[in-house]
């Protein structure tokens, strides 16, 4: 990666690697109780009765709550509040909460859960979208079993297929992936004197949690304070409420702080996952490789409740043709309620599923056409001023062609060494396009504040959350670069609704981008205030002063004129801004405006004896505007790639009859360091002339193209196409055996 700026140590780096840093789940308060949540024993059942008397009488138990204790709306959900905080009469998945207990110790709370008597009447389990879509299927919600439909069409696909020389159709299946953050969901609720509470728990949007909790508790939002950073990973998984309502209900009922920290098993059982999808694609092309028609059908298993399921499906539909222009396209998506856990927001947000299907499909089509797969992409790639994938206006960008050209030159794709005994190697490449921000028609407000603290620190305050992605490093870097001060002059405040302005969610690759936008808006008026005060203090002309390390300096001599500390002695000084994430001017719901682009080239090694696939080498090309924080950028791309590697090769939260097969990380496998090779990274920082939107976020773009690249490389190695993830060693070995590559098979 050649980036023209020095690497820096991230502000929270030392605390994290030494273990000094306190997460919300590390906090303790005087008189604190421990909470546990009773989850459903069945994936689908009526609740006949709940009796908590024995638990309430148990020594050491201080509070037991059921749905009767919820003062306001007994529901939550970012888009549609359809998930019961505590179920009244029905459970729809094994993570549904029925009661919660606060006790003097965690062990007592656990033992008390066993004393709560719940009588169930089991109902048929809708364990697949197909089953839930049957005409006579039991309705999981009042409106039926369809959460959401999404549709897009342009041109006439039937005409396109008729004009095509080659038409190819295939169905691709994607698994349920778990976020597997190191820190499981947890935190402490502390009751306050005014009848409200402070919630110390990780989330990706503190103000959204406050809104949802105010609705549940039927109290003004101002009575709830959310302290939510730092957290030990989220990847979308802590965007929705998790333990907060239970800790707060127990805290208010007992009058004491209550801590809940889920075990990994509890996290597996109750936490959201990536949507399993089945995607059928039919694509037509002429003999030259021009794509003429593209018909896509997506079926998503959204589980028991909505959370961000509708938006995930919209994203998949939007990205069905990726960075390619296809004149005739029709995409239909359906997101179906089942009794399989809850699927929702997850890094990549529907892009991973559709891009695997699309890119693999194009690789297979290129084989049929006899055209080099990258050449097929080049023929159909979008041009800088083309409309977006929903035929809507977007910020002009040449990112697609840039990453395609860059990855085409990867040394990985030129490797010729292929076989070593029973190990066979192959290479592959794929590209992707990814919208940032929430999309048109969705509340996507951002904002920030610059102030001078009484200690003389330039204080950058944002409503963003530090979930490991490095937002603190990004804020520090942007403030330093844009204001000209030193890192030592800056303090950063995030993750506390009592202290920060609204910035929107730390999701959708929007954090870094919105910090940059905010500072662009704030720097001029903030510096003007600083200079005015400095001019008054020093007698110098404001025009001759510039910000620098420690204070304002003489523009010509660079000599320090007045320190920030001295300026702070004159009283507070602040500038605040509020604005919206840039959106398309066209009223296309969910349509994005700013896109980033990614490409990956990989080499894999396939073991002909075991069907094991090992990633040997990997290079990324990313076009997402200027790099803000070099290590943060690399970390996001490499981390995203490791996550995608897991998605491709091993991760699946398998469910049988609505129950998770793996309850812990001994059977739900994620990649270890031995699975992840060193990676190379090409960062393409150029933007189109006149582009005023600055750096795009890179939280998701590195986690998408690598999957189809691996699948292509496997085909290159052993001639077998994969249409289902994670790649099954068993199925691959069978396919290898059919080819008779060994003397004994």
């Amino acid at each position: 990666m050649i980036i023209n700026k020095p690497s820096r140590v991230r502000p929270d780096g030392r605390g994290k690697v030494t273990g000094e840093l306190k997460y919300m789940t590390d906090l303790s308060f005087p008189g604190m109780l421990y909470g546990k949540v009773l989850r459903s024993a069945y994936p689908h059942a009526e609740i006949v009765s709940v009796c908590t008397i024995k638990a309430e009488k148990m020594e050491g138990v201080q509070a037991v709550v059921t749905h009767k204790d919820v003062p306001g709306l007994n529901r939550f959900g970012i888009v549609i509040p359809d998930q019961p905080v505590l179920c009244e009469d029905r459970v729809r998945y094994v993570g549904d909460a029925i009661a919660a207990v606060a006790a003097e110790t965690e062990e007592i709370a656990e033992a008390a859960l066993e004393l709560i008597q719940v009588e169930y009447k089991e109902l048929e389990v809708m364990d697949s979208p197909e089953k839930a879509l049957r005409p006579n299927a039991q309705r999981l919600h009042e409106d039926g079993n369809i959460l959401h439909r999404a549709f897009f069409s342009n041109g006439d696909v039937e005409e396109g297929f008729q004009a095509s020389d080659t038409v190819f159709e295939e169905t691709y299946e994607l698994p349920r992936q778990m976020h597997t953050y190191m820190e499981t969901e947890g935190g402490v609720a502390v009751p306050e004197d005014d009848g409200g509470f402070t919630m110390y728990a990780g989330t990706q949007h503190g103000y959204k949690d406050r809104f949802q909790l105010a609705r549940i508790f039927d109290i003004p939002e101002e009575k709830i304070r959310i302290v939510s950073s730092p957290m030990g990973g989220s990847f979308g998984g802590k965007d929705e409420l998790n333990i907060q309502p239970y800790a707060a209900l127990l805290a208010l009922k007992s009058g004491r702080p209550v801590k809940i920290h889920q075990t990994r098993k509890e996290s597996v059982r109750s936490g959201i996952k990536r949507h399993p999808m089945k995607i059928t694609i039919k694509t037509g092309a002429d003999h030259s490789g021009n794509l003429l028609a593209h018909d896509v059908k997506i079926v998503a298993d959204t589980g028991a409740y909505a959370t961000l399921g509708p938006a995930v499906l919209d994203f998949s539909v939007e990205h069905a043709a990726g960075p390619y222009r296809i004149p005739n396209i029709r995409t239909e998506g359906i997101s179906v309620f089942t009794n399989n856990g809850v699927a929702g927001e997850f890094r990549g947000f529907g892009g991973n599923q559709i891009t695997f299907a699309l890119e693999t499909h194009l690789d297979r089509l290129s084989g049929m056409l006899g055209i080099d797969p990258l050449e097929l992409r080049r023929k159909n790639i979008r041009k800088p001023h083309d409309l977006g994938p929903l035929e809507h206006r977007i910020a002009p960008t040449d990112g697609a062609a840039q990453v395609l050209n860059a990855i085409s030159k990867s040394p990985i794709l030129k490797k010729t060494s292929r076989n070593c005994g029973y190990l066979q190697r192959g290479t592959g490449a794929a590209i992707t396009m990814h919208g940032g921000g929430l999309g048109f028609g969705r509340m996507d407000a951002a904002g920030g504040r610059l102030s001078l603290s009484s200690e003389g620190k330039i204080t950058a305050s944002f409503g963003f959350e530090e979930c490991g992605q490095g937002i603190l490093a990004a804020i520090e870097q942007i403030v330093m670069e844009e204001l000209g001060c030193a890192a030592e002059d800056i303090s950063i405040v995030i993750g506390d609704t009592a202290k920060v302005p609204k910035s929107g969610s730390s999701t959708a690759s929007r954090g870094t981008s919105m910090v940059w936008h905010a500072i662009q808006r704030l720097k001029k008026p903030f510096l003007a205030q600083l200079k005015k005060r400095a001019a008054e203090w020093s007698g110098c002309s404001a025009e001759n002063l510039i910000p620098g390390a420690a204070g304002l300096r003489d523009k010509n001599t660079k000599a320090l004129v007045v320190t920030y500390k001295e300026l702070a002695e004159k009283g507070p000084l602040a500038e605040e801004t509020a604005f919206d994430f840039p959106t398309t001017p066209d009223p296309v719901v969910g349509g994005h405006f700013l896109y980033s682009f990614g490409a990956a080239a990989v080499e894999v090694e396939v073991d002909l004896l075991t069907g094991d696939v090992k990633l040997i080498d990997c290079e990324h090309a990313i076009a997402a505007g200027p790099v803000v924080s070099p290590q943060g950028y690399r970390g996001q791309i490499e981390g995203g790639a490791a996550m995608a590697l897991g998605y491709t090769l091993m991760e699946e939260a398998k469910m049988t009859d609505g129950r998770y097969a793996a309850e812990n990380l001994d059977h739900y496998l994620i990649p270890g360091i031995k699975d992840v090779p060193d990676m190379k990274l090409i960062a393409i920082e150029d933007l189109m002339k006149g582009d005023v939107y600055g750096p795009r976020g890179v939280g998701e773009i590195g986690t998408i193209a690598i999957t189809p690249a691996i699948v292509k490389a496997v085909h290159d190695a052993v001639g077998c196409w994969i249409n289902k993830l994670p790649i099954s060693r068993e199925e691959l070995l069978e396919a290898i055996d059919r080819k008779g590559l060994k003397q004994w098979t």
Partner: protein
Amino acid sequence: MNGQVTKARMNIQLWRPAALDEAYSLLEKLAPDVCAASGSTLLQLQWDKGTLPKQHLVSLEGIDEMRGISTSDTHVSIGGLTSLNECRKNPLIKRALSCFSDAASAVAAPGIRSRATIGGNIASKIGDFIPLLLVLGAELIVYQKELIRLPLGAWLSEEDFRTAIVTRVIIPRAEGERVFYHKLGRRQAFTGAAAVAAGRFLKDGSIRLAAGHADITPRRLLDSEAKWMAPGWDPHELYKTLIHELPFSSDVFMSAAYRKKAAANVIMAELMAEGGE
């Protein structure tokens, strides 16, 4: 589920005998609600799954005669309380039985290796070391009112020794013989075994093969051994015999058919390398 785990832990009584006879008496007296413990790593998994409702634990950690490593010209003797990490790093073992220390690198995650013991690995009857020990012709010294020396294979199959304590394993040095050991997992980093296969080409031209995986007791592959030793052995036939003989079962993550194929393949590759027909 969690309640059961904690309750089990809260109520467990821990015994710390200093001698074998004392430990054995406790295990007899407290049966069936008792379990012997050394590194307790397997017990940890059983606790976590709620499948270990034992009321008493008898720690073997204070029994000195279960410690120590020694070698002779023909054998290596390893005390049952020796950690897997020690098996991997000990210079005596490395020098006298490198195949064993190499295999220790594939058994358990690094953190587990520092607690888990070779005695526990064997006593569990599902340990990943067992196939290797079987092909090496290892013997055990177990305590059951008295010290008894017997072949590992007998220990695995005979019910009479169900309550015996594994005090020591005695392993022939297998010098000048090629030994292979493969542990198949589900990723490059450590995982529980999908299959374990081991083999030894003896100086007299014979072979020993054994296999197992985390949920079953490993065993020798006698039919396959015989097939290989027969003159003019046919790779297709031997592969079929292996598939038939490999003692694997299915779980939700992996089928028995896959385990058999993969293990048979790695064994076949070794046999072909040794001298395929």
